[in-house]
């Protein structure tokens, strides 16, 4: 009875919170179209028109070594600590392009899973990542 009552309190609090999370939804189902993947030309277009925010999922050392200009760094392993620092100015409707070093890009997929759990709706994966961006000679920020 106590467990049931506690569970109901938790569910009610989740419903009333600013960022409720879905209860009965799998967190890791990238094959179900929860985000789309885009290639370098479309990524560059988004970069040029400034329509999306870039999220770099690599670790901070790699990020500080060079990243897509204006990207923010949310490493997979420190997501829980770092995400709250940005969540205030990251509306869940904002288009986010997540990248890491390059294929298979597991870090990006993990960050996408987290972002989706946090309610972000417009998520895009750039599988080519930093390797493709740098090879193309596009702008770099350090």
């Amino acid at each position, binding site marked *: *009875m*106590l*467990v049931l*009552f*506690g*569970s*109901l*309190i*938790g*569910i*009610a*609090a*989740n419903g009333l*919170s600013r*960022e*409720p*999370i*879905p*209860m*009965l*939804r*799998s*967190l*890791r189902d990238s094959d179900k179209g929860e985000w789309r993947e885009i290639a370098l030309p479309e990524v560059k277009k988004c970069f040029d028109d400034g329509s999306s925010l870039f999220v770099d999922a690599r670790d901070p050392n790699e990020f500080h070594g060079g990243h897509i200009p204006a990207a923010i760094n949310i490493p997979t*392993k420190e*997501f*829980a*600590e770092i*995400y*709250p620092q940005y969540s205030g100015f990251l509306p869940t409707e904002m288009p986010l392009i997540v990248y890491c070093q390059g294929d298979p890009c597991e870090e990006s997929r993990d960050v996408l*899973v*987290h972002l989706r*759990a*946090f*309610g972000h709706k417009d998520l895009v994966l750039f599988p080519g990542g930093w390797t493709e961006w740098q090879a193309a000679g596009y702008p770099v920020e350090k």
Partner: protein
Amino acid sequence: MLALCARFLVGGVILYAGLSKIGDPSAMAGVIENYRLLPTNLVNPAAVILPGIEIVAGFCLLEGFLIRGSRLIATALILLFLGAILWAIAQGLDIECGCFGTSDAERVGWAVFARDFLLLLLLVPVWFTEKHLFALDEWLAKQRK
């Protein structure tokens, strides 16, 4: 008297832990995910339900209400947390504990394990005491007589 102090201390800590987590389920989901212990489809339900159970168990323990049930849940919760902490240490994970929400930035480690183990030890007198002082259960029993 020892059981009373233990009840207040453990109940208070568990209640505070639940209250500090319940307002931000999305952050809790991130913390739980970092432990890499639960299947991903159970992360969100755990993040939503656990704080509520902590609040109820902590409050009941503090008030001495439904003590048998609340001490059982409190013990189970602490054992669960100890297991998760041991797992994280064994895996070499350098992650946020999330023991009191995400605002304290406390890392998982032996200090956290020792604190939770102390809470578990404090529950021993609560298990072996028949008549509890300042307990709602006792007061309700007197009212019924």
